[in-house]
């Protein structure tokens, strides 16, 4: 089983607030892999909008994105692309 961890700077205008967080969760849910997001040593379920919101990810924040599973690569690629674009 593959595990991909990448460091990402979030570029969305207001960080991961409700709408971008919702899109993130929707993308994550398309894949089988387990998705986690970590910031400042705290790691949460990347398929839970409440958990993601509770990380308080502002624009410019550095997060680690971890995808584990058979489609880890595709999962990580698509989520990274989303986080690095300004999607507001």
């Amino acid at each position, binding site marked *: 089983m593959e595990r991909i961890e990448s460091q990402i700077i979030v570029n969305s205008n207001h960080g991961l607030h409700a*709408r971008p967080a919702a*899109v993130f969760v929707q993308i994550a849910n398309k894949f089988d892999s387990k998705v986690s997001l970590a910031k400042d040593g705290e790691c949460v379920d990347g398929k839970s909008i*409440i958990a993601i919101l509770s990380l308080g990810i502002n624009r410019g924040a550095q997060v680690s994105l971890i995808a584990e599973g058979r489609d880890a690569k595709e999962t990580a690629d698509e989520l990274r692309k989303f986080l690095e674009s300004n999607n507001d």
Partner: protein
Amino acid sequence: MINLQGVAAAGGIAIGKVFYLGKEEFVIPKHRITHEDISREIYRLEESLIDTRREISSLQKRIAKEFGFDHAKIFEAHLLVLEDRVLIEDVIQQIKDKKINIEYAFSQSIKKYVNILLKLNDDYLRERVIDIEDVSRRVMSKLLKQKEVNLRDLDEKVVVVSHDLPPSQTANLPKEKIMGFVTDVGGRTSHTAIIARSLGIPAVVGTEVATKNVKSGDVIIIDGSLGQVFVNPPEKIIREYKEKLVKYKKEIEIAHVPRALKACTKDKKEIVVSANVELPEELPLVVQSGAEGIGLYRTEFIFLGRRDLPTEDEQYKAYLTVAKKVKPNSVIIRTIDIGGDKFLSRPEVPAELSPFLGWRAIRFCLARPELFKTQLRAILRASTEKNIKVMFPMISGIEELREAKKLLEESKKELKKEGKKFDDKISVGTMIEVPSAALTADSLARESDFFSIGTNDLIQYSLAVDRANEKVAYLYEPGHPAVLRLIKSVIESAHKNKIWVGMCGEMAGEPLFAFLLIGFGLDEFSMPPPCVPKVKELIRNIKFKDVEKISQKVIDLATAREVEKYLQEEARKILKDDFERIIMR
């Protein structure tokens, strides 16, 4: 029968059924469950989540249809909260570990995440609490089988009785279903009163105990001109009021007939009578009333009752619609006046001990230049029709005016660079509603194109009276000599500096005071549309020369009571048989 006396907030009579609008607070039960109950509690949770999902989806579709897809997007996030694994697992864990009922477990989990979000150092994310609480309220109402109240769901015409009407509730009001308002709190200038007048719906506020004396379905009569409320009255009173209602409707028709006539005194002084507008739905009322344009366009409503900030384009479209509707007359757009009794439901505006003395209006805008400039750019872009004027609320000194004008100039430069069109000569007005501004009106006049006196606040600030506080409301006197002297000196300062001066407060629409203000030389009167016909009729029936003389005498009187008595006597002499109808109604 119960008879209550309140504050006459908006004229007119309503006879109908009570709709009691209570506060939506759930009492969340807490009890222990046995091991056997666990699966039943989890089943109840799932059922409620499914019901809520159905409800939000249909709401999302409706909003998308009515207001556009963008407005509906937020519900995507709401739906995700409903199926959030972390949240649901947390709830189920609690039920299993602590053996507590689902309502309590669910409310505890929500509380936990709300608290985490509240601690975040980010306004935008902290604001998501509203979304989570919104969803949780829906789920809770399903669990408890209590229906959430929404005035939009009314299926018949009713008189709404409530403790108070929060601005977020009034932002989306189904006007055609509401015959009248009765509230426990508030005065003539409270939010409910202003809304009611602007929509032409009778209202009695400040009854203190109305909600304790009615239930939904009771028969109620309200007389918004006298501040009277009758609950379950006998047949005799109903009959009496039905006759009054017929008479009242006729009177309004009479006053509406000559609406096309100009507001010009018998000795040919032309005065502008325009309308205060709060909601886009009022625009037809403005035209109907015979108002010459809009003297006060309140923009807060674009910001209220929603979860994100309106974009520049959205604001631009709203302002342009109004400008086009009132053409060839003009519209004075007041930049956002948030704070005070109107609130924005976001953590950017924290609760204050004295909101009226706090961070609001221009103070708030200057502290949030990005937000302010978005509005200024939208106003400028809409000004291509050349009939928009802009004015700044709550200016307390010249520095604020300069700072606001600087941001306006910056916005113009930006638009020029982007090749966007606007009216380069847009008029810039200062609202005079703080005593310090009134007292320095001469210097403000040198840097303004016009003034608009906001009497509601000017009176509150100069007499140190909070009108919503029933204990001191009696001190709120528009006829107080201090207020009159301030107004007179503001008008004089304006005229000395060759700028015109209007009034957009309450007082302008009260015929007795309008009678005096014409004498002071006020150039423009802006008021709720239903007040327009009467004030225009008043103007057509007097001579400026006469009221000017009267106004000079008034300024030496010692009390508000003497002022009003004197004005009534003089008005009666001039208007004769029309006095009762025009001045006293």
